[in-house]
């Protein structure tokens, strides 16, 4: 936080004046955030300590029972594993694809804007629309799905992409939706990063005899993109934690959700918002999840040094 001068002695009045201006600028935002984020958050923590079936003003205090029940629930634990697997897939995949796209597009001498637009365009689509196209048109399990049509040209049997657990084809569907939706956005972040790499670095490298291509990438471009990489990975991990829309729209049916590919948010949604409406248990799960996310994010930003640059 750059607040030079704040440690120096200042006349009292000036400091008060600043505080006043600070809150004029920041106050409305913070007040709204407090009301619409912190109040519900505190309420969730409160609910998690009660037996709150179908009520938001419970009276039956149960201490940490909901927490032990949630941690002891194999379905919740397996949802955490699902999440870990998903993150392990999606973060490196999106990172590699968007960086690759950026590098390729950046070097284009013509039609650069066209390719950039094509890859960026999906970022405008919603998960609802994308999941719909994937589920009903690309990866539906019958003969008129695009993927199965292509398989059919090679004489293969139709595959029930979302329904078959052996092999777990549904991961292909889930991961490709998100890749399609997100790669373009992160590509733009990388493109922006690439613009900032000083040309003289490349010139110097060329003088030192570095060959264009892999060596230059390895020793010049990649290190120069470090800040961008850190931010992209952080955004990707936070995004993966919040995964809900595509899972829900791809795999839920009118009666519920299958026991596989069920990330924590989806499981909690059914626990707390379904007919079961066990708000105490659901809130406990949400608090556990929020803690995990917080720890991971803090550790990650410490390790990668996010924000160090600001000092």
């Amino acid at each position, binding site marked *: 936080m750059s607040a030079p001068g704040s440690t120096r002695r200042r006349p009292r009045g000036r400091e008060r004046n600043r505080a006043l201006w600070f809150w004029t600028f920041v106050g409305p935002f913070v007040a709204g955030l407090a009301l619409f984020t912190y109040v519900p958050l505190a309420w969730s923590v409160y609910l998690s300590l009660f037996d709150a079936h179908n009520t938001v003003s419970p009276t039956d205090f149960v201490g940490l029972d909901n927490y032990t029940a949630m941690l002891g629930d194999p379905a919740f634990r397996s949802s955490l594993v699902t999440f870990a697997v998903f993150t392990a897939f999606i973060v490196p995949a999106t990172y590699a694809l968007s960086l690759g796209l950026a590098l390729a597009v950046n070097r284009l001498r013509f039609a650069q804007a066209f390719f950039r637009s094509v890859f960026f365009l999906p970022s405008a689509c919603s998960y609802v629309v994308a999941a719909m196209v994937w589920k009903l048109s690309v990866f539906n399990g019958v003969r008129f799905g695009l993927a199965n049509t292509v398989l059919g040209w090679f004489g293969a049997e139709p595959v029930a992409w979302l329904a078959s657990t052996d092999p777990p084809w549904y991961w292909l569907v889930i991961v490709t939706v998100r890749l399609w939706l997100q790669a373009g956005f992160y590509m733009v972040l990388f493109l922006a990063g690439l613009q900032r790499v000083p040309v003289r670095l490349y010139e110097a490298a060329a003088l030192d005899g570095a060959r264009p291509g892999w060596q230059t990438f390895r020793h010049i471009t990649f290190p120069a993109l470090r800040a961008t990489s850190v931010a992209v990975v952080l955004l990707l991990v936070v995004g993966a934690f919040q995964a809900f829309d595509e899972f829900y729209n791809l795999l839920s049916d009118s009666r519920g959700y299958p026991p596989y590919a069920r990330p924590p948010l989806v499981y909690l949604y059914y626990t707390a918002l379904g007919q079961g409406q066990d*708000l105490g248990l659901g809130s406990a799960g949400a608090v556990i999840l929020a803690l995990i996310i917080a720890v991971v994010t803090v550790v990650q930003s410490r390790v990668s040094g996010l924000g160090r640059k600001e000092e």
Partner: protein
Amino acid sequence: MPAKTERTAPVRTADDALVRAGRALRLVLLIALAALFLIPFYLLVRNGLASEEEITSAGWTFFPSRPHWSNVRELFADPDVPMAHALLNSSLIAVATTAGTLLLASLAGYGLARIPYRHANAVFYAVLGTLMVPAAVTFVPSFVLVSSLGWVSTLRGLIVPTLFSAFACFVFRQYFLGFPRELEDAAQVDGLGYWRTYWRVVVPNSRPVFAAVGTIVFIGAWNSFLWPLVIGQGRSSWTAQVALSTFTTAQTINLHELFVAATASIIPLLLVFLLLQRYIVAGVERSGIDD
């Protein structure tokens, strides 16, 4: 795999032919990828203009033999799904959310970046912390809160709770940290306070970042689903995404109408996107979203 484009470039030799071959290969790869990326859009249009029989027929038709423009008429005349009104709602909500978010978040971002205050750090971390809390985690209490304000099924309820974007605030703060101090100093010398400096000097010089954040917020608002589904309980407050979901969750699925509706729901956004794209790119470059 696209990361390989870099690797497959000929690095072993400076031979011109090889370099050119590498470039050609990269171009082919890019074209192939671009085609893959466009497939979903193609499917939206193809299915939207096909008859139900063509969509579900065993043999693949690349494009409907005769485009069924009547699908479009059918969609907008469907008494069960007020699509036109839903699109209008989505537009209203997206515009209002974008304007409100830009105002609130940019002010807050500037205050956090530039006004020295003892507790600024604490406030900043309190804002940043909410980035980590998935909305679904606090979903039920939020719903109860909004409903106790009497905002269910109102545009207020759909818009106001979503105006306080920690992400937007974070981006603005990062951007303003890098804003050239000389400009502000000059203004301060001229006797302008924070408020007037902000509006007269800072905002006019920051258009790209506003465009970039604005577009991201607009897309998010247009595409949000869960909140409008639960808050917008009356048909008169359905958004485009909610209207779309009525096709998929019904007992029967009307594929051609569904795809027309999906296409209709993304066209406005694609237009905004294509028009503002260069601002987004420029904005991202200058905003430090990626720093």
